[in-house]
């Protein structure tokens, strides 16, 4: 349990997707003009990460990595399909996003009207594929740990986008030099937020 909380906290604060790895920056910059849309996209990212990473974890451990096919029989035990992992992961992400979109539309129209327009954006959000690739690289020992990592990084991403959206709403009233307006100042503020988040470094529970 302690380990799980630790992985979660690490994903939120220390190895934050935005501030430490810059994953999902494109949609982060494009959709952070108001807090409301920021919350929507952030929630969608948590949701999709929480679904795709465990699926990719199963694929990785029962299909792709070396020796993963051992459950099929002796002769399959030495097969290493890990070079296919990238294609598998992106296919899972793209199809899951599509599936989730259809399911949400069918069963929860209310959620769909608030998340709906963001879901297609998620398929090209690097933080989702990045989550799968980090999961592969860090080799979590159980599926629960992988899920905890996914939710942690999702929440970290959520915090980052809501934070920047709130700051951008405020900054509309300030007199920023014209060439720096919009993109430039957003980059610099994100950098400063990143420096702020760095003070969490080294925390472990």
């Amino acid at each position, binding site marked *: 349990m302690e380990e799980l909380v630790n992985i979660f906290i690490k994903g939120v604060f220390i190895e934050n997707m935005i501030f430490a*790895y*810059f994953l999902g920056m494109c949609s982060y910059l494009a959709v952070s003009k108001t807090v409301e849309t920021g919350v929507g996209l952030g929630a969608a990212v948590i949701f999709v990460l929480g679904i795709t990473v465990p699926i990719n974890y199963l694929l990785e451990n029962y299909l792709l990595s070396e020796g993963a096919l051992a459950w099929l029989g002796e002769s399959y035990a030495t097969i290493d399909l890990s070079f296919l992992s990238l294609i598998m992961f992106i*296919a899972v992400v793209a199809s899951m996003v599509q599936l989730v979109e259809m399911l949400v539309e069918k069963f929860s129209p209310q959620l769909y009207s608030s998340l709906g327009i963001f879901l297609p954006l998620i398929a090209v959000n690097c933080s989702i594929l990045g989550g799968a*690739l980090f999961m592969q690289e860090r080799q979590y020992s159980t599926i629960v740990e992988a899920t905890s990592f996914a939710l942690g990084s999702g929440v970290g991403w959520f915090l980052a986008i809501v934070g920047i959206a709130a700051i951008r709403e405020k900054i509309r009233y300030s007199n920023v030099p014209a*060439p720096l*307006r*919009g*993109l*430039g100042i957003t980059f610099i503020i994100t*950098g400063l937020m990143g420096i702020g988040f760095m003070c969490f470094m080294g925390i472990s529970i």
Partner: protein
Amino acid sequence: MKSTLFSKKNRKLLSDPLGDQNPITIQVLGICSALAITVQLQQALVMSMSVVFVMVCANMIISALRNVIPSRIRIIVQLVVVSSLVVFVDQVLQAFLPDVQEKLSVFIGLIVSNCIIMGRLEAFALGNTLWPSFLDAIGNAVGYGWILLAVAFFRELFGSGKLFGYQVFPDGWYEAGGGFYLNNNLMILPPMALIVVGVIIWVQRSRKSFPDELLEEN
């Protein structure tokens, strides 16, 4: 009507993304994988070259197939083409530059979801013939690459006092040699990449010749 290989229009395809239509600083595409690997010039160079390769091949393949791809499944087709190319690049790097590949780790894989590539495939290659697509790919990938190299230049120079791994500042400048100089360790940390890009954007947009309509509101 047949335009010559280097007509004005074609040259514009090549030169626009380097400056006023730059994918990173103006169109805000492909930032995800751009920033994390700019601590050293070598990594940035390998990354830019991989992107140039993937982008040129993907743009030309999609352009050649554009009349055959059904529009309903075009995204999947694009993803498959791009990810096969990326797997190829990844395997080549693993074979010939294993130490760089180790450092780039997941970021080579993330070229797949690099929005520049998908964006150009979607916006350009699907509607244009081979040669313009080729130029468009080169222009955009190099436009991406030069920003990467510029950021990496400043970060490596001020962060570790080196360029391409060779020391630039003489030993005598450093404290150990009796000097005054200290490397700015902050430059190596991730947040500085964002700030350096922010400053590059600022400088680029401050030029007199920068078109006013591209300036943004807060």
